[in-house]
């Protein structure tokens, strides 16, 4: 079995199984978590409105911090969008999903994907360096923070290299790309990357709590 056969076969299969089981494990854990009942009376009605507002209001920076965090905020937005564009709109990736679910959709031109991937990878590297060099950021960063960025960065770098035929032979690069995707799948449910699933629900819950106490969100 070649490295590529291993990557396309057992590696992706087991990584996907761990990803799905791990994800449901985490979600189940959060759902079943016992929570303290609020002891005070609600300050406002329509709690869902508070949750819903917070889901959307956090997509733009808070006015108070806008000047200080705009670079980080913008970079974060761009690389997240770039990542999903590359993941979901690249012809070859759509083929992967089609093989799995039988569904396909129109792709973006390869040139657009190439630019999106390069910009995304560049921003991730920049943010990683910033995290490692800024004293405050460094003080609040742990292993999970650094590892999560690296684990997201690897599929982008190996994907770019295999597309552009850089470095190792194509089939080796493709195998490394698939293995890096497998690593991402295994790492995601058990790291901070799980925010992919929990971010919007937790914003909603936070919004409901704030709204109940009469805090504007």
């Amino acid at each position, binding site marked *: *079995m*070649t490295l*590529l*056969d291993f990557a*396309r*076969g*057992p590696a*992706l*299969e087991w990584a*996907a*199984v761990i*990803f*799905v*089981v*791990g*994800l*449901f*494990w985490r*979600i*189940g*854990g959060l*759902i*079943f*978590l*016992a929570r303290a009942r609020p002891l005070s009376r609600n300050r406002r009605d329509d709690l869902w409105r508070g949750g819903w507002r917070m889901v959307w209001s956090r997509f733009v920076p808070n006015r108070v911090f806008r000047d200080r965090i705009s670079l980080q905020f913008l970079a974060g937005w761009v690389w997240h969008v770039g990542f999903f564009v590359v993941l979901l709109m690249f*012809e*070859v*990736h759509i*083929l*992967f999903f*089609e*093989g*799995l*679910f*039988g569904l396909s959709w129109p*792709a973006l*031109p*390869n040139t657009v994907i190439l630019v999106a991937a390069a910009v995304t990878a560049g921003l991730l590297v920049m943010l990683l360096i910033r995290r490692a060099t800024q004293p405050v950021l460094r003080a609040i960063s742990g292993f999970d923070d650094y590892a999560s960025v690296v684990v997201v960065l690897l599929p982008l770098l190996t994907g770019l290299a295999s597309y552009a*035929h850089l470095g190792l*032979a*194509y*089939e080796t690069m*493709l195998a490394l790309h*698939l293995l890096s995707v497998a690593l991402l799948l295994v790492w995601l449910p058990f790291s901070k990357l799980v925010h992919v699933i929990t971010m919007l629900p937790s914003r909603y819950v936070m919004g409901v709590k704030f709204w109940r106490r009469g805090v504007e969100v």
Partner: protein
Amino acid sequence: MTHPPPSLSDRLRAHGISRRSFLRYCATTASLLALPPAMAPRIAQALEAQRRPSVIWLSFQECTGCTESILRSDAPSIESLIFESISLDYHHTLMAASGHAAEAAREAAMAENAGQYLVLVDGSIPLGNMGFSTTAGESNVETLRRVAAGAAAIVSIGTCAAYGGIPYANPNPTGAVPVSEIIRDKPIVNIPGCPPIPAVMTSVLAHFLAFGELPELDDLGRPVVFYGQNIHDRCYRRPFYERGEFAESFDDEGAKKGWCLYKLGCKGPTTYNACAVLKWNGGTSFPIEAGHPCLGCSEPNFWDAGSFYQPLSQATDLDSRTLALAVGAGVAGAVVAGVAGREAQKAHHEAAAKRAADRSKAEVSE
């Protein structure tokens, strides 16, 4: 008075091939082998002096496609004459003799040219039951060991001899192995392909005849000069890949326009061979040009590397059924662990509340 056997040069002249054509062939061979032009005269000189070196062709678990490939080269090409000009002393399919006479011819060739003859092998060797494939009552593995012992070098022709090929594919019922798993003390060159390109076979032989050694090989024992680049890199359909223009089926507009066959499972990006450059049938075409995706037939285990028609970017083992099972397992695990965790959480809270109550009761009594 005995005359020395005619040299290749004499034989070519007898076939009406001019010296100019012969030199052009030598220049082409030098070019195919990526040798500097100055080497062409050396190839010519060496080939002219050759006195029909003895070649023994052993056929084991094979389909005769490799022999067909050589025979169907655009005869009477100079390549085929070169092939005629070696002394092919043993070949099941091509030799006139049969039975004991054929085996006697092989034994005689081995005795007369001990240490100097070339062994060409097509087909894999079964190690399961020795009766799976025999010649004159002798198992393939015994024949190979005995014949290889006196050989100067071995050329594994075709993917079966080089890497096991189709007989080696899962579940490998005959216990088939490639030549390199049996013979380890002789120089071996692999010329994989199902079948290999005729010009590649003859050029490797020409290199051996001219320089007395095998060409530079890659880590899979293949001549780098022919197997150094993948088919995708040299494919004339590559621009369509870059533009994202793919044939979706074998009869759609994309297929008619000659767009890239990646979506139809083309293995060109991971297959190293000279098909896109040398082509077949005298440089007429190759599978992708004929509208079919590359199967990757010159790569090890090509038969077991997923469907021929599954794109390279798709997982081979993962499917929606596996994912559904994983979802089920994940949900079940989460429910069991969640309920147990909740009970533990409740018990912890109750214990804490009881401790607090006991403490306050103790304070009151004091």
